[in-house]
Every structure is written in C-alpha cells, then in structure tokens.
C-alpha cells in the first residue's frame, strides 16, 4: 500500500492542497482508498473513471440516502452516469471536509437536493427529499395529507418570493442560519 500512496508526486499533491480544502494526509488517504477501488490491471489510476456502483460500496457513502445524487452531482462524466475520477473524488471530499465553507457546502447541498436538475427545489423535489430522509415507503412513512402539510410549511417559511419553489439564494438564506448544518454535512474518510 505504501508504494501506491507514493505514486502521487509532490507537485500534484501541492496542487490538490491548493485547490481543495483537504490536508496532505487526507489527500494521501483519499488516494489510497481510491486506488483500492481501481481494477488490478489499471496502472495509472488518476484519470480512470470508477463506476458509480463501486463508489456506492464505500462505507462512508453506503448508508447515505443521497449517495446516488452525490455521485451524479460530483461526476464530470459526459454521459452523466455518476462515475468519478480522482479529481471528482477529491472535489467530493473537499466539499464534505471539515474546513469547507458554509457557502460551498450549501451550494452542493442544494444541487444534491435538486433531484430534477432544474435549478430550483419544486414540490416534487421536496417530496423526494422528505421520502429520502424518512426512509422511503412503508406503512410508517408520512401520509399524503401529512406530506402536503409539511411541504406547505416548508414553502411558507423558505419561499420568500412566493413563486412556489425554493431557489438557491433562498436555500442558502435558510441554511446560513443553521449552525448545525456545517457539522453534519460532512464525510471524512
């Protein structure tokens, strides 16, 4: 393992340190974890795209109800299949790191919650979000009436311009007042 970790040369390392919120140790650890996911015959791993299914097997993401959205948001793949190369992987870890700013975190949170990628959180997005949070279907989940009451409540509070959707600035406005958000929007390897 020690040899794979040293493949990341010094220049790259300092570049990543400049471009992300990660520390040197965290980048090396990320590289180690990333190269464990690589297929054996792959030697130069940095540009290889790991398919989404393999990423979702990471214990840090496995239990997360938003794991597929996270992969899709951070993937730069042209076919939007949620596959990640090492750059994307570091982007992900950087946004979820301890020291990322509230602005970065809320920005990515918004994009993760925006299920249909239309730039605002509409009623469908909110409903999907609530379903993800409460663990999907089953007899214990919220009834349609409760769901409607809940979404009405959310929109009443957060939808400042009353256009029926929550846009990025409104979202960040809400998030900025939650001191707990920064401490819980976090994935550390």
């Amino acid at each position: 393992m020690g040899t794979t970790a040293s493949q990341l040369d010094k220049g790259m390392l300092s570049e990543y340190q400049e471009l992300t919120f990660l520390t040197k140790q965290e980048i090396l650890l990320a590289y180690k974890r990333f190269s464990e996911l690589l297929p054996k015959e792959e030697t130069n791993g940095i540009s290889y795209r790991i398919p989404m299914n393999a990423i979702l097997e990471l214990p840090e993401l496995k239990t997360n109800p938003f794991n597929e959205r996270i992969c899709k948001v951070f993937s730069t793949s042209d076919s939007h299949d949620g596959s990640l190369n090492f750059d994307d992987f570091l982007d992900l870890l950087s946004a979820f790191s301890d020291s990322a700013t509230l602005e970065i975190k809320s920005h990515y949170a918004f994009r993760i919650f925006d299920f249909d990628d239309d730039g605002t959180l509409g009623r469908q997005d909110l409903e999907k979000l609530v379903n993800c949070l409460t663990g999907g279907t089953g007899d214990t989940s919220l009834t349609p009436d409760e769901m409607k009451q809940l979404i009405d409540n959310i929109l009443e509070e957060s939808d400042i311009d009353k256009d029926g959707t929550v846009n990025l600035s409104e979202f960040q406005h809400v998030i900025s007042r939650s001191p707990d958000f920064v401490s819980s929007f976090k994935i550390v390897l």
Partner: protein
Amino acid sequence: MESQKSVNFMRLLSDESTRTTVSSDSCEYYETEIYDLLPSVQACRAEQSRYGPSEGSEDDPEHAEGGSHGYRSRGPRDKTSVPPLRNLPLCMQGKRGVRERRKMQISRIGVWASWRRSHSIICRRWWGHMGEWFSGLLPWKHTLHKIEGRVGVGVKSYFVFLRYLIWLNLLHCALVGGFIVGPTAFHSGNRKTELLNMVKNFSALDVFLGTGFLENSPLFFGFYKHSSLRFSCLNTPLLYFAGIISILLLSLIMVIRRTTVGYKHTWMVGKRYSTNVSFKIFCSWDFTIQDPTAATLKHSFIRNDLKLFLQEQSFSLRKAMRTFGQKLRLYLLRFILNLIVLCLLGGAFYLIYFSTHVSQQKTDDLSWLVNLLYQYLPPITITFVNLVLPHMFRKISSFEDYSFTTQVNATLVRSIFLKLASLGIYLFFFFRKLSEACRENRFGREMYKLCIFNFLATFCNTFLLSYPRKLLKEKFPTSLLARLSGKQRFLIPFNVLDLVYVQTVSWVGVYSCPLLPLIGIFTLTATFYIKKFSVLRCCMAEQRMFRASSSSVLFHFMLLLGLLMAAVTLGYDFHKQQYPSSSTSSSCGPFGSEETVFNVTGECVKNLPAAAQTTIRYLSSEAFALPLILAEIIILTSYVSRGRANTKAIDRLKDMLVMVSLTDARKFVKPKNILKNQLYLFNSLERLKSTKCFTNITVGTTKSKKNIFYSDSTFQGFL
C-alpha cells in the same frame, strides 16, 4: 486573512467548539457573512453559481472567467483579496482554468501587486499548516470520529465537552503546580522524611477515605504550612490565595466566552425567524453516519421528529380550543404533579441531611467495612438520588400534557436543580455541623470522597449494570428479564449533568484539596474510555437526538452555575475565617492562627511603595466605586441601545429582502397574485414608515449598508 477566520469558525462549528483559539470577532464576522448570503446580494452573483460547477470546465473558459469576476465584484472584502481557489464551487478542471487565468493576470499587473498576491497565498498556506499542526495535537480525533459515525453528532458533542473539561483541569493543574505545590516543594527540604513516613503507613482504606497518611499529604490544605518563604509579598498564604483566585477567574473567563459564542448563535437562530421545518428538512441528515443501524435509526428519528412537529402543530390548535373546564382540570393536575415533584425534592434533601448527620457521628468502635460505609453515606445518597429522581421526573412530565419539547425541558430544569441543590444542601449542613481542629482538611476530604465515589459509580454503572444487561439481551433475547429491561439509551442531558456535577465538586473543593484537578484529569480520562465503551458497546443512540449547537449552550450554562456555587462556597469560607466563632477557629494550613486572607493581602500592600499604596487604597475606596459604576452603566446602556438598533435593522433588512425578492420576481408573477403581493408590500411599507427610518438606516458593516442602498433604490424605483 478574513476568509481564514471564517474557515476557522466553520472548523469550530464542526468540532463543536473544541478550539480555544477562535476569537469572538470571528463570530461577528460570521454575522456579517449572513448579510452576504442574503438573496439580494446573491442576485448580483448571477447565474454562474447556479449552473457554473457542472459546465465551467476547461472547454468553457469564458464561463469560468465570468465566474471568478462575479466573485470578485461581490463586496469590499473581495476587492482587496481574491478568494482562495478552493472556495469556488467549480470542479477541479474548472479551478485549474481559473488559476491559469489568475497567473496570467499576475504577469499583466505590476510587480508590487503580484508580490502582494503571492505573499497572501503563502501566508494563507502557512496559516493552514499551523492550523493542521494544532488540530493534530488534539487527542482522540479518531475515536470521536468513530463515535460520530456510529451514533451521530449529538453524542459526539458530549465527548467533546468531556475533552474540554479535561483540558480545563490540565490548566488548573498547571496553576496549582505553579502557585501552590511548586513553592512549597522548593522551600521545604526537611519535610522529605515526613513524606517518606507517609508512604510507609500506606493503607488502601485510607485512599478511599482520605484519612490516615493522606491527612498530612500534599493532597489537602493542611500540608501547605507557613514555610521558610516569608517575604511580605511572596509567602505561602499569599501564593495559595493567588493560585485559587486565578483558577476561578480563569475558569470564569473561559466558560463565559464559550457560553457567549454559543449564545450568539442560538440568538441568531432565534424564535423570531421561524424556520423550524426547513431546518428539519434541509439540515437534518447527518452525513457522517456510517453504521447501517445508526442510519435506520436516523431515518426513524427524522420520521418521528416530523410527525412530532405535525402533531405539535395540531396540539397547539387543540390547546387553543380547550374549554374552561378542561383547562381547570389540567391546571389542577399540573399543580398536583408539581407538588409531588416538590415533595420528592424535599424528601431527597432530607435524605441528604440525614446521611450527613449520621456520617458525622463517631464510629471508631465499628469494623472497617461499616466505617467505610458510614463515611461514604452522603456521597452514596447524593449519587443514588441523582440516579433515580431524574428518571421519575421524566415519567412525571409525561403526564402534564405539555408539548414534547416542553416536557424535555421541564425534566432537564428539574434535574439541574436537583443536582446542584443536593450538593448545595450537603455543603450547607456540612458547614453547620463542622467542629474540628482543621476545618478545611475535613471539608477537602468530603470533596475528595464525592469525587472518588462519583467515579466509582460511573464505573459500576457501566460494568455491573449496563454491560450485563447488554450481554443478557444478546445471549437470551427472548427471556423475560431481557424484555423487561428494555433498550438502553445514552441520555445525553443526564450524562452531561454528571460531568457538570464533577466539575462543580472540583471547583468547590480546590481550595481545601488543591490536588483535586489532578485527580479530575485521571477520573475524567478514565470516564472518557468508560463512556466510549458504554456508547459503542452497550447503548443505542437516543431516540430524540440533541441539536449540537443548542446543547453546547446549555452545557456551558450549567457549568457557569456550578462555578457560581463554588464562588459562593469560597466566599462563605473566607467570611468564616474573618469572623471565626469560638468553636470553629482553624489553625492549620497556610492561614495560621492570626492570618486570614484579608490580613495577608493587607500586609503585602503595607510593604509596597507609597504611591502604589495610595493607588490601591483609592481603587478600593467608595470614591472610586461610584465613577466605576457610572462608567459601567454608560457602557452597558450604549451596548444595549446598539443591540436594539441592530435588532431593528435586522427586521428592516428582512422586510427589504422580501420586497427585493418581489421586485425581482415581478415579471414572473401571475396576474392574480399581483394584487396580493402589492398589498403585502404596502403593509410592509406602512410598517417601515411608522418606524420612520427607512431612508437613513445606519448599520455597522459596510456590506449591509451597500445592501440597504441597493434595496432602497429598487424600492424607490418600485414606487
């Protein structure tokens, strides 16, 4: 530099205020940052931040360029220093592109500016390295991370608090070593034989009771006699006094600072801007959770929480519709339940009184085991009472038909009262009954016993109660006993109460038992591992998770109460020293027969040069007190009025915010909504006019000023 601060502050939040390096101004900065996040400011940030990240890669250089410009034109802060690349919400390639362009800009602009820019980058990196290095010094990072992953942020905040207490005790230890133990050890060569004798008389029972060889050890007040160190301003009593006072002052400053940092936050989140549901939806998932069972638990927790919210909404509706008879019945029920609570508290206090009374009777003729039991009776009673009653309070409050949040708070307030009052009652009775030659030694011994016993109770509770229960549940999941015992939960508030209690005992006892902080370090460290075992091995996470931020305010507020109690006890002790009654003249320790705390400082002042003497006399006279009080009143008034002005400004900004959003959204609004919106606008306008200052608002930060002017102009345009 400023952005560094904000990063630091975020780290503080994410670490639940573990850092002590963060100054309060970073918090103020955070407040201005909020203005920065207002939609009206964001409006000029345009489309880039919405779609930039997915498209601003290298094949779209124009776009990314626009993005970096958009950021630079944000406010005065960004004009002077370019935001670090990592702050851009772009993908890695996008950031590389921006960096290339910045480099080209550097070659275009002057040498001086480019030097300044690269210098600022180096500084930033250096600070980052320093921060990393310091955070590496904090112990138990991985353990905390593991706990966080298993059971969430709420439980982690308990452990962070525990770590903070250990750090506090370490500081106390350093002070005790410097002021009290150090000088005595340095100036008492002939007492080494005394110490050797002590070691010879070692017995295990004495370790628990604090008697025998420990009586004359450095553990207690009596050891620190007036020694060869006899200068008028540098002698053992004075050093002792200075040590204790500095410990209490230091604790006061540290605790207050952390309370205010947390308080500012809760205040900002405050009730006036109700965003409860949105928080529950947008911020409730804890992304740190890795354990599948913890994740399912979190799902069900969120579901319950949301249902609870909806229920509370209908509860308040139901409450509004209660008939007079129902109200009367309910109040009667609450009155009776409160009476029961009072009775329970009274009973508990009587029990403590009784045990204190019993333990102070002479018990020399009994066997050592009974003797030990007698000696430990008060600590056992206090611990027992504190173990049982909170759970009863929890049950009682469920009958009172309060909303769920009020129930939890009521239980907590009652438990806090019980915990601190039981200690207070114990001290009170103890002081009244005390009639020994060396009062302080005796008192120190009691505190020592409380400390030791509380640790033993924690230990036994985990290994003799929780762990067997867990084993039973694992081995025989269907047996009656296992089903009866139910699920074990880690109740954060009660556990924190325990910690606060230990720290309070340590503060109260540090005067008469100066090595208590040292013992505290050992017991707290052991508690850390015991609780870790208990959390990871025996308990499930609590159903109702605690919000990390609000709980930390509560924790520190409780600590403050404990500190207050310690100060009162110390004051009472000094008072007794000043006016000793015939039975309680103490004649041991640094303050001998004639010397009291007041004498010693007086002696020191007398030997100072004349100018210093007059200054001190003036400072302690009434002539100085009056101007001091006046000045304090003036400063306080100015702060209060400034606070009020800020509150008003925030309200007004909120109104503006609504209006700006409305004007922005005007073109999208459907015709039937226009009338409604205009009505709303009109109402807000009326409200503003009634306060008569919507044209000349002055707010401290330039950023919000800009904000207001912006909204003002749109406002007038709209008219």
